[in-house]
Protein backbone atom coordinates (compact mmCIF):
# COMPACT_ATOMS: atom_id res chain seq x y z
CA UNK A 1 0.00 0.00 0.00
CA UNK A 2 1.26 3.42 -0.84
CA UNK A 3 0.74 6.32 1.55
CA UNK A 4 0.01 9.98 1.00
CA UNK A 5 0.30 12.79 3.54
CA UNK A 6 -1.40 16.13 2.91
CA UNK A 7 -0.06 18.71 5.36
CA UNK A 8 -0.87 22.37 4.96
CA UNK A 9 -3.44 25.13 5.29
CA UNK A 10 -6.42 26.74 3.66
CA UNK A 11 -4.80 30.16 3.75
CA UNK A 12 -7.73 32.39 2.82
CA UNK A 13 -9.79 33.88 0.05
CA UNK A 14 -9.56 36.83 -2.26
CA UNK A 15 -11.59 38.47 -4.99
CA UNK A 16 -15.05 38.08 -3.46
CA UNK A 17 -17.57 40.94 -3.40
CA UNK A 18 -17.29 41.36 0.37
CA UNK A 19 -15.08 40.05 3.14
CA UNK A 20 -16.45 38.45 6.34
CA UNK A 21 -16.14 35.02 4.76
CA UNK A 22 -15.91 31.43 5.90
CA UNK A 23 -15.38 28.21 4.03
CA UNK A 24 -16.81 24.70 4.30
CA UNK A 25 -14.37 22.22 2.85
CA UNK A 26 -14.04 18.50 2.33
CA UNK A 27 -11.88 15.88 0.61
CA UNK A 28 -13.37 13.34 -1.81
CA UNK A 29 -11.49 10.18 -2.81
CA UNK A 30 -12.18 7.05 -4.80
CA UNK A 31 -12.85 3.62 -3.37
CA UNK A 32 -9.22 2.49 -3.29
CA UNK A 33 -8.28 5.17 -0.72
CA UNK A 34 -8.50 4.79 3.04
CA UNK A 35 -8.20 7.67 5.49
CA UNK A 36 -5.77 6.65 8.25
CA UNK A 37 -5.78 9.85 10.29
CA UNK A 38 -6.96 13.42 10.15
CA UNK A 39 -10.26 15.16 9.51
CA UNK A 40 -11.41 15.10 5.93
CA UNK A 41 -13.92 17.89 6.20
CA UNK A 42 -14.48 20.98 8.23
CA UNK A 43 -15.50 24.57 8.38
CA UNK A 44 -13.22 27.53 8.91
CA UNK A 45 -13.77 30.48 11.21
CA UNK A 46 -15.30 33.68 9.87
CA UNK A 47 -12.63 36.30 9.18
CA UNK A 48 -13.40 40.00 9.04
CA UNK A 49 -10.12 41.58 7.95
CA UNK A 50 -9.15 44.86 9.53
CA UNK A 51 -7.28 46.12 6.46
CA UNK A 52 -7.57 44.99 2.87
CA UNK A 53 -10.07 42.65 1.34
CA UNK A 54 -8.24 39.33 1.72
CA UNK A 55 -9.88 37.03 4.29
CA UNK A 56 -7.36 34.85 6.17
CA UNK A 57 -8.44 31.54 7.68
CA UNK A 58 -5.12 29.69 8.23
CA UNK A 59 -7.14 26.49 8.59
CA UNK A 60 -4.77 23.53 9.17
CA UNK A 61 -5.07 20.33 7.15
CA UNK A 62 -3.22 17.15 8.16
CA UNK A 63 -4.43 14.02 6.36
CA UNK A 64 -2.90 10.57 6.03
CA UNK A 65 -4.24 8.27 3.29
CA UNK A 66 -3.32 4.74 2.25
CA UNK A 67 -4.18 3.59 -1.23
CA UNK A 68 -4.15 0.54 -3.46
CA UNK A 69 -4.52 2.43 -6.72
CA UNK A 70 -4.21 5.76 -8.49
CA UNK A 71 -7.90 5.97 -9.39
CA UNK A 72 -9.90 8.49 -7.42
CA UNK A 73 -6.97 10.71 -6.47
CA UNK A 74 -8.10 13.03 -3.63
CA UNK A 75 -9.94 16.22 -4.52
CA UNK A 76 -10.50 19.14 -2.16
CA UNK A 77 -13.83 20.90 -2.57
CA UNK A 78 -14.98 24.21 -1.09
CA UNK A 79 -18.05 26.30 -0.43
CA UNK A 80 -17.26 29.91 0.38
CA UNK A 81 -19.94 31.68 2.37
CA UNK A 82 -20.42 35.27 3.43
CA UNK A 83 -21.69 36.05 6.93
CA UNK A 84 -23.05 39.51 7.57
CA UNK A 85 -23.07 41.38 10.87
CA UNK A 86 -26.47 39.91 11.73
CA UNK A 87 -25.20 36.36 11.36
CA UNK A 88 -27.03 35.60 8.10
CA UNK A 89 -25.13 33.45 5.61
CA UNK A 90 -25.08 33.68 1.84
CA UNK A 91 -23.33 31.38 -0.60
CA UNK A 92 -20.50 33.06 -2.47
CA UNK A 93 -18.91 30.26 -4.42
CA UNK A 94 -18.22 26.61 -5.08
CA UNK A 95 -14.82 25.33 -6.16
CA UNK A 96 -12.64 22.24 -6.19
CA UNK A 97 -9.04 21.34 -6.92
CA UNK A 98 -7.08 18.11 -7.10
CA UNK A 99 -4.61 17.46 -4.31
CA UNK A 100 -1.16 17.78 -5.95
CA UNK A 101 0.35 14.50 -7.04
CA UNK A 102 4.02 15.39 -6.70
CA UNK A 103 5.82 15.60 -3.37
CA UNK A 104 6.87 18.95 -1.99
CA UNK A 105 5.40 22.30 -1.24
CA UNK A 106 2.59 23.71 -3.44
CA UNK A 107 0.80 27.05 -3.62
CA UNK A 108 -2.67 26.57 -5.08
CA UNK A 109 -5.21 29.13 -6.27
CA UNK A 110 -8.60 27.45 -6.49
CA UNK A 111 -11.13 29.35 -8.59
CA UNK A 112 -14.79 29.41 -7.58
CA UNK A 113 -18.16 29.95 -9.24
CA UNK A 114 -21.73 30.53 -8.18
CA UNK A 115 -24.99 29.38 -9.82
CA UNK A 116 -26.79 32.15 -11.68
CA UNK A 117 -30.55 32.28 -11.32
CA UNK A 118 -33.13 33.79 -13.64
CA UNK A 119 -33.07 37.59 -14.07
CA UNK A 120 -35.82 37.91 -11.47
CA UNK A 121 -33.71 35.93 -8.99
CA UNK A 122 -30.65 38.04 -9.76
CA UNK A 123 -32.61 41.23 -9.13
CA UNK A 124 -33.93 39.89 -5.83
CA UNK A 125 -30.43 38.80 -4.89
CA UNK A 126 -29.17 42.35 -5.33
CA UNK A 127 -31.62 43.56 -2.71
CA UNK A 128 -32.13 40.76 -0.20
CA UNK A 129 -29.20 38.42 -0.86
CA UNK A 130 -29.64 34.66 -1.04
CA UNK A 131 -29.48 33.05 -4.43
CA UNK A 132 -29.68 29.54 -5.86
CA UNK A 133 -27.61 26.74 -4.36
CA UNK A 134 -26.80 23.28 -5.63
CA UNK A 135 -29.12 20.60 -4.41
CA UNK A 136 -26.38 18.01 -4.43
CA UNK A 137 -22.90 19.32 -3.61
CA UNK A 138 -21.03 16.56 -5.52
CA UNK A 139 -21.64 18.53 -8.68
CA UNK A 140 -18.78 20.73 -7.46
CA UNK A 141 -16.14 18.05 -8.09
CA UNK A 142 -17.81 16.00 -10.82
CA UNK A 143 -18.53 16.88 -14.40
CA UNK A 144 -21.63 14.72 -14.74
CA UNK A 145 -24.58 17.11 -15.07
CA UNK A 146 -22.73 20.38 -15.35
CA UNK A 147 -24.22 21.25 -18.71
CA UNK A 148 -27.48 22.08 -16.96
CA UNK A 149 -25.94 24.93 -15.00
CA UNK A 150 -25.47 28.60 -15.79
CA UNK A 151 -22.92 30.12 -13.41
CA UNK A 152 -20.96 33.29 -12.73
CA UNK A 153 -17.31 33.62 -11.74
CA UNK A 154 -16.44 34.42 -8.15
CA UNK A 155 -13.19 34.79 -6.19
CA UNK A 156 -10.25 32.50 -5.42
CA UNK A 157 -9.44 30.26 -2.45
CA UNK A 158 -5.74 30.18 -1.62
CA UNK A 159 -4.11 27.00 -0.32
CA UNK A 160 -0.65 25.95 0.75
CA UNK A 161 -0.32 22.18 0.62
CA UNK A 162 2.66 20.03 1.41
CA UNK A 163 2.65 16.54 -0.05
CA UNK A 164 4.67 13.60 1.31
CA UNK A 165 4.47 10.34 -0.65
CA UNK A 166 5.63 6.96 0.57
CA UNK A 167 6.25 3.75 -1.38
CA UNK A 168 4.78 5.07 -4.62
CA UNK A 169 8.10 4.40 -6.32
CA UNK A 170 7.95 0.74 -5.24
CA UNK A 171 4.88 0.35 -7.43
CA UNK A 172 6.59 2.04 -10.33
CA UNK A 173 4.65 5.28 -10.03
CA UNK A 174 6.54 8.31 -11.30
CA UNK A 175 5.55 11.70 -9.87
Amino acid at each position, binding site marked *: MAELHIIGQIVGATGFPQSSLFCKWGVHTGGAWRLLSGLKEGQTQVDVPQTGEVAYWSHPIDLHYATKGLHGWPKLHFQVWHQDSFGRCQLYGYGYCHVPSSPGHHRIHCVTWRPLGSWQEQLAQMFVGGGPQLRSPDLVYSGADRYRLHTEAMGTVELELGIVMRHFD*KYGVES
Partner: protein
Amino acid sequence: AAMATSNPSVFLLTVNGQIEGANFPEYDNLYCKYCFVYGHDWAPTSGLEEGITQITCKGSQSSHKLIWNFPLETTFKSTNPSGWPQLVLSVYGPDVFGNDVVRGYGATHIPFTPGQHTRTVPMFVPEPTWRLQKFTSWLMGRRPEYTDPKVVAQGEGREVTRVRSQGFVTVSFHIITKDMKKLGYDTGPSSPANTAAAPSGWSAEEQPINMQ
Protein backbone atom coordinates in the same frame (compact mmCIF):
# COMPACT_ATOMS: atom_id res chain seq x y z
CA ALA B 1 22.71 10.44 18.91
CA ALA B 2 24.73 8.23 16.57
CA MET B 3 24.92 9.54 13.03
CA ALA B 4 25.12 6.17 11.29
CA THR B 5 22.11 3.84 11.50
CA SER B 6 21.44 1.22 8.85
CA ASN B 7 17.79 0.50 9.71
CA PRO B 8 16.26 3.58 11.28
CA SER B 9 12.84 3.43 12.87
CA VAL B 10 12.49 7.15 13.43
CA PHE B 11 13.30 10.18 11.33
CA LEU B 12 14.49 13.54 12.62
CA LEU B 13 13.45 17.09 11.77
CA THR B 14 15.80 19.92 12.73
CA VAL B 15 14.46 23.46 12.68
CA ASN B 16 16.87 26.39 12.77
CA GLY B 17 15.10 29.66 12.27
CA GLN B 18 14.00 32.95 13.59
CA ILE B 19 10.90 34.96 14.26
CA GLU B 20 12.06 37.91 12.19
CA GLY B 21 9.39 40.42 13.02
CA ALA B 22 5.89 41.61 12.36
CA ASN B 23 3.69 43.98 10.43
CA PHE B 24 0.77 45.36 12.42
CA PRO B 25 -0.45 48.64 10.95
CA GLU B 26 -2.49 49.68 14.00
CA TYR B 27 -0.35 48.55 16.93
CA ASP B 28 3.10 49.08 18.43
CA ASN B 29 5.23 47.89 21.38
CA LEU B 30 4.52 44.23 20.76
CA TYR B 31 6.02 40.97 21.98
CA CYS B 32 5.45 37.48 20.71
CA LYS B 33 5.05 34.13 22.47
CA TYR B 34 5.67 30.97 20.48
CA CYS B 35 5.21 27.25 21.04
CA PHE B 36 5.21 24.10 18.93
CA VAL B 37 2.15 21.88 18.53
CA TYR B 38 2.59 18.34 17.19
CA GLY B 39 0.85 14.98 16.98
CA HIS B 40 1.11 11.86 19.15
CA ASP B 41 3.90 10.32 17.10
CA TRP B 42 6.21 13.28 17.58
CA ALA B 43 8.57 14.25 20.38
CA PRO B 44 11.11 17.05 20.71
CA THR B 45 14.63 15.77 21.29
CA SER B 46 16.51 19.01 21.80
CA GLY B 47 15.94 22.74 21.95
CA LEU B 48 13.14 24.73 23.47
CA GLU B 49 9.46 24.10 22.84
CA GLU B 50 8.32 27.56 23.74
CA GLY B 51 9.54 31.06 24.48
CA ILE B 52 8.85 34.78 24.58
CA THR B 53 10.51 37.52 22.56
CA GLN B 54 11.49 41.00 23.66
CA ILE B 55 9.09 43.93 23.40
CA THR B 56 9.79 45.84 20.22
CA CYS B 57 8.54 49.05 18.69
CA LYS B 58 8.47 50.41 15.17
CA GLY B 59 11.73 51.89 13.95
CA SER B 60 12.08 55.56 13.18
CA GLN B 61 13.12 55.00 9.54
CA SER B 62 10.66 52.40 8.26
CA SER B 63 7.72 53.20 10.43
CA HIS B 64 5.80 49.98 9.88
CA LYS B 65 8.50 47.39 10.68
CA LEU B 66 8.58 45.62 14.03
CA ILE B 67 11.73 43.50 14.49
CA TRP B 68 12.33 40.66 16.96
CA ASN B 69 15.13 38.63 15.32
CA PHE B 70 14.34 35.84 17.82
CA PRO B 71 16.12 32.47 17.42
CA LEU B 72 14.32 29.14 17.05
CA GLU B 73 16.37 25.96 17.37
CA THR B 74 14.57 22.68 17.93
CA THR B 75 14.86 19.08 16.78
CA PHE B 76 11.96 16.61 16.67
CA LYS B 77 11.85 12.86 16.14
CA SER B 78 8.90 10.93 14.77
CA THR B 79 7.75 7.68 13.20
CA ASN B 80 5.02 9.26 11.09
CA PRO B 81 4.51 12.55 9.20
CA SER B 82 0.96 12.85 10.58
CA GLY B 83 0.81 15.52 13.23
CA TRP B 84 3.69 17.40 11.60
CA PRO B 85 4.73 20.21 13.99
CA GLN B 86 3.21 23.64 13.72
CA LEU B 87 4.65 26.85 15.11
CA VAL B 88 1.95 28.69 17.07
CA LEU B 89 2.45 32.42 17.59
CA SER B 90 0.63 34.87 19.87
CA VAL B 91 1.40 38.57 19.76
CA TYR B 92 0.57 40.88 22.66
CA GLY B 93 0.76 44.61 23.22
CA PRO B 94 -0.51 47.39 25.46
CA ASP B 95 -3.89 49.01 24.95
CA VAL B 96 -4.79 52.63 25.61
CA PHE B 97 -4.94 52.03 29.37
CA GLY B 98 -1.67 50.09 29.53
CA ASN B 99 -3.12 46.58 29.90
CA ASP B 100 -1.56 43.71 27.93
CA VAL B 101 -4.00 42.50 25.33
CA VAL B 102 -3.68 39.98 22.52
CA ARG B 103 -3.11 41.49 19.08
CA GLY B 104 -3.03 38.30 17.07
CA TYR B 105 -2.84 34.51 16.99
CA GLY B 106 -1.45 32.54 14.10
CA ALA B 107 0.03 29.19 13.18
CA THR B 108 2.04 27.70 10.37
CA HIS B 109 3.35 24.22 9.63
CA ILE B 110 7.11 23.77 9.83
CA PRO B 111 8.20 23.26 6.21
CA PHE B 112 9.26 19.72 5.43
CA THR B 113 11.56 20.10 2.44
CA PRO B 114 15.17 20.68 3.46
CA GLY B 115 16.47 24.15 2.79
CA GLN B 116 15.53 27.73 3.42
CA HIS B 117 11.92 28.90 3.70
CA THR B 118 10.17 32.13 4.67
CA ARG B 119 6.62 32.22 5.94
CA THR B 120 4.37 35.24 6.39
CA VAL B 121 1.79 34.17 8.98
CA PRO B 122 -1.52 36.06 9.10
CA MET B 123 -2.50 36.96 12.68
CA PHE B 124 -6.09 37.22 13.87
CA VAL B 125 -8.01 37.95 17.07
CA PRO B 126 -11.34 36.48 18.16
CA GLU B 127 -14.07 39.06 17.71
CA PRO B 128 -16.71 39.78 20.31
CA THR B 129 -20.09 39.34 18.68
CA TRP B 130 -22.01 42.35 19.78
CA ARG B 131 -21.29 46.06 19.84
CA LEU B 132 -21.84 46.35 23.60
CA GLN B 133 -19.34 43.59 24.27
CA LYS B 134 -16.85 45.36 22.00
CA PHE B 135 -17.23 48.57 23.96
CA THR B 136 -16.98 47.02 27.43
CA SER B 137 -13.98 44.97 26.43
CA TRP B 138 -12.26 48.12 25.15
CA LEU B 139 -13.06 49.90 28.40
CA MET B 140 -11.96 47.07 30.70
CA GLY B 141 -8.88 46.13 28.64
CA ARG B 142 -10.08 42.57 28.43
CA ARG B 143 -10.41 41.34 24.86
CA PRO B 144 -11.70 37.86 24.20
CA GLU B 145 -8.70 35.55 24.31
CA TYR B 146 -8.19 31.84 23.82
CA THR B 147 -7.56 30.09 27.14
CA ASP B 148 -4.97 27.96 25.40
CA PRO B 149 -3.34 29.46 22.29
CA LYS B 150 -2.67 25.94 21.00
CA VAL B 151 -6.26 25.71 19.73
CA VAL B 152 -5.09 27.91 16.86
CA ALA B 153 -3.26 24.85 15.50
CA GLN B 154 -6.47 22.81 15.26
CA GLY B 155 -9.19 22.85 12.68
CA GLU B 156 -12.06 21.52 14.81
CA GLY B 157 -14.45 23.84 16.57
CA ARG B 158 -13.75 26.82 14.38
CA GLU B 159 -17.25 26.97 12.94
CA VAL B 160 -18.60 29.17 15.69
CA THR B 161 -15.77 31.66 15.90
CA ARG B 162 -15.64 35.07 14.30
CA VAL B 163 -12.18 36.59 13.97
CA ARG B 164 -10.47 39.68 12.63
CA SER B 165 -7.14 39.38 10.83
CA GLN B 166 -5.03 42.42 11.57
CA GLY B 167 -1.36 41.75 10.99
CA PHE B 168 1.39 39.38 9.88
CA VAL B 169 4.43 37.80 11.49
CA THR B 170 7.39 36.82 9.31
CA VAL B 171 9.32 33.68 10.23
CA SER B 172 12.26 32.16 8.38
CA PHE B 173 13.34 28.53 8.62
CA HIS B 174 16.33 26.40 7.67
CA ILE B 175 15.19 22.79 7.65
CA ILE B 176 17.23 19.60 7.89
CA THR B 177 15.69 16.13 7.89
CA LYS B 178 17.40 12.83 8.59
CA ASP B 179 16.35 9.34 7.47
CA MET B 180 13.05 10.30 5.86
CA LYS B 181 14.24 8.85 2.55
CA LYS B 182 15.44 5.65 4.27
CA LEU B 183 11.97 5.17 5.69
CA GLY B 184 10.46 5.54 2.24
CA TYR B 185 9.16 9.11 2.45
CA ASP B 186 9.51 11.41 -0.55
CA THR B 187 9.13 15.04 0.43
CA GLY B 188 9.97 16.50 -2.94
CA PRO B 189 12.91 18.59 -4.09
CA SER B 190 14.90 20.63 -1.59
CA SER B 191 13.91 24.26 -1.77
CA PRO B 192 16.16 26.60 -3.78
CA ALA B 193 18.21 29.18 -1.88
CA ASN B 194 15.84 32.00 -2.85
CA THR B 195 12.27 31.17 -1.96
CA ALA B 196 10.27 32.62 -4.85
CA ALA B 197 7.05 32.85 -2.87
CA ALA B 198 5.35 35.76 -1.26
CA PRO B 199 6.52 39.28 -0.58
CA SER B 200 7.61 39.55 3.04
CA GLY B 201 4.52 41.55 3.93
CA TRP B 202 6.49 44.46 5.35
CA SER B 203 4.53 47.34 3.91
CA ALA B 204 1.03 47.93 5.17
CA GLU B 205 -0.32 47.76 1.61
CA GLU B 206 1.33 44.52 0.48
CA GLN B 207 -0.46 41.28 1.12
CA PRO B 208 1.15 37.83 0.84
CA ILE B 209 -1.47 36.57 -1.59
CA ASN B 210 -0.88 37.48 -5.24
CA MET B 211 -4.08 38.93 -6.64
CA GLN B 212 -4.22 38.52 -10.41
